[in-house]
């Protein structure tokens, strides 16, 4: 990988709420390469969605964001609002989990797509209408001309998600941030949407950051993965590396919690307890109370994310023991 492939670089991103009392994202650093799909995986409250929203600065005023987000050499955090507006929704687009709430119910789909075209392109009225039809074709909505006049409630869940993707793609973004785009959808529709995102990635050569809680989705779509727990990244690597040889006990437990073929009606390798709330993140390694590998040091010191190979990082004092115990999915 050479440096010119770098699209987005996040450095030491920290997001707090309630005047610094609650830390949702804690010192998170990662980078996104051109044309890759990066998976950000974790359970509820792990900070994966807040990470995306911090990058886009789409958080309520009660939050405080620090750190740096480099986009084409510029730090998004240092930008003025008008500079940021060019990037946000233009060069970087975002799609959300729940299209019903992300779309405006009282505006037709055509209006919502054109809104974005008006802001981010120089097309005239006719050009925008033509582009809107093209976008509907691109995301696989049939009868584009007719359906553009319709309102979000006239679309099914899967089609609504396609509309949201069409809006996000209106400005030819170089990076798509997808926040659980298929969580609310049925498995066959999820398969359609994920394949659509991958096809669009190939056609439009954009990069994708995909936030999900489903390791199956990661296995099926992502090139690299970053596992988050209690606001921190605990492990990164290519999907093949991380699934074949998890180096963090949490990754290993998460993999073991998902039923897979050949282990029917056996006990799953579950993780005791539940993910901690933001107000009660344990000292030391946040995972240590639930960790079967934890030692005395884990409750005191916090392990930093360290390089253990090219593009491979892990934050665990006992990673050798974890790695030696093997991957639960064999």
């Amino acid at each position: 990988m050479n440096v010119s492939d770098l699209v987005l670089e996040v450095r030491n991103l920290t997001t707090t709420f309630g005047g610094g009392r609650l830390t949702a994202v804690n010192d998170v650093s990662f980078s996104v390469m051109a044309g890759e799909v990066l998976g950000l995986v974790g359970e509820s409250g792990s900070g994966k969605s807040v990470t995306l929203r911090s990058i886009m600065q789409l958080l309520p005023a009660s939050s405080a964001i620090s750190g740096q987000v480099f986009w084409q050499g510029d730090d998004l955090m240092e930008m003025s609002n008008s500079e940021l507006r060019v990037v946000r929704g233009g060069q970087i687009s975002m799609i959300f989990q729940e299209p019903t709430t992300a779309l405006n119910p009282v505006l037709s789909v055509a209006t919502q797509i054109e809104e974005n075209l008006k802001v981010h392109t120089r097309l005239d009225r006719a050009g925008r209408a033509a582009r809107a039809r093209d976008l509907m074709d691109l995301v696989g909505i049939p009868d584009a001309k007719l359906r553009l006049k319709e309102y979000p409630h006239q679309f099914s869940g899967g089609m609504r998600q396609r509309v949201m993707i069409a809006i996000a793609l209106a400005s030819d973004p170089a990076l798509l941030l997808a926040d659980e785009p298929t969580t609310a959808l049925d498995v066959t529709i999820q398969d359609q949407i994920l394949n659509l995102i991958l096809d669009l990635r190939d056609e439009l050569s954009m990069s994708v950051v995909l936030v999900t809680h489903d390791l199956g989705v990661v296995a099926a779509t992502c090139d690299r993965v970053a596992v988050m727990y209690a606001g921190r990244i605990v492990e990164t690597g290519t999907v093949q590396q991380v699934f074949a040889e998890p180096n963090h006990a949490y990754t290993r437990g998460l993999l073991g919690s998902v039923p897979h073929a050949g282990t029917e009606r056996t006990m799953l390798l579950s993780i005791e307890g539940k993910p901690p709330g933001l107000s009660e993140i344990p000292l030391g390694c946040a995972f240590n109370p639930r960790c079967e590998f934890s030692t005395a040091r884990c409750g005191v010191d916090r392990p930093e994310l360290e390089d253990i190979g090219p593009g491979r990082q892990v934050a665990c004092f006992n990673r050798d023991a974890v790695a030696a115990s093997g991957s639960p999915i064999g």
Partner: protein
Amino acid sequence: MQVTLIQVEDVSKRFPLPQSVLNRLSGKPAPAVHAVNGISLTIHRGETLGIVGESGCGKSTLARCLVRLHECDGGRILFEGADIAKLKGTTRRAFNRRVQMIFQDPYSSLNPRMKVRRILGEALSVHQMRPTKDIPARILELLDLVGLSPDAADRYPHEFSGGQRQRVGIARALAVEPEVLVADELVSALDVSVQAQVVNLLLDLQDRLNLTVVFVAHDLRLVRHISHRVAVMYLGKIVEIAPTAALFSAPRHPYTRALLDAAPEIDPTKRSRTVAMHGELPSPINLPKGCLFSTRCPHAFDRCFTELPQLDDRGPLHQSACHLVDFGAKSDHTNSNIMEEGP
């Protein structure tokens, strides 16, 4: 030796929709959501039957019919040979006790104003499971059974996490010592790591208490993990039912095949960039003619659009409802093109 415990015979359930006066006068049929359309199956004692399908396929309605939360519009359900719709008085109460349901959403299925002690105590006293003096001890036993600490008894449902609350729901169902548990999307609302804990608990309890479980879920991986047999539903009908291993290794219905292909497997080496199934679920108000899956089936031919296929035997305990009787058969699994042309 398999003993039939519950026999479902051609059960259907409709939910009527409002009809305009004009439509009624013109004699048009009353519109209704056809949630369950003629389902027959048997549930054996001690087994886990998985029921899987996409949202709107009628799996939850079927589960509710099984415990008589809905009355069936057609067909009947026999529990140990007795039609449950005809049960009255003490026999109905006995049935209610022996067949228990656990709901998807532990946030709304537990009374927020009752402490766990009262939630469990109520179940115990209503069905007179224990003399009053033994109830406190039994509550502690139940909490221990589902892996909660004794101090949980004096807490309200909102004080628990989602996984713990689901455990309370399970404890309440088990309080009346049922023989059948109907679990509707038991772990769907939970985080992955907590899901695994509850799944482990269910497997353990089934072994210890010799329970029969009907496990309704949309997650194929979970259903495969838990079930002895699996029924796949589509638009209110069973399209395929088989022992788990047979169904997942050699599905004999195109819908099952597509569902399995679409489900993301947790194995990065098994990637596919082809879309498993195009289109979306048709409306359950106006059902398609012929085979219900014909509108999305890549293998559909003339007969599929006119004639509804019945569930036929495909192997030991394996039934599929498809006109292509050879679909997915071993000799033919490499070449499905031949079948596309049909007979």
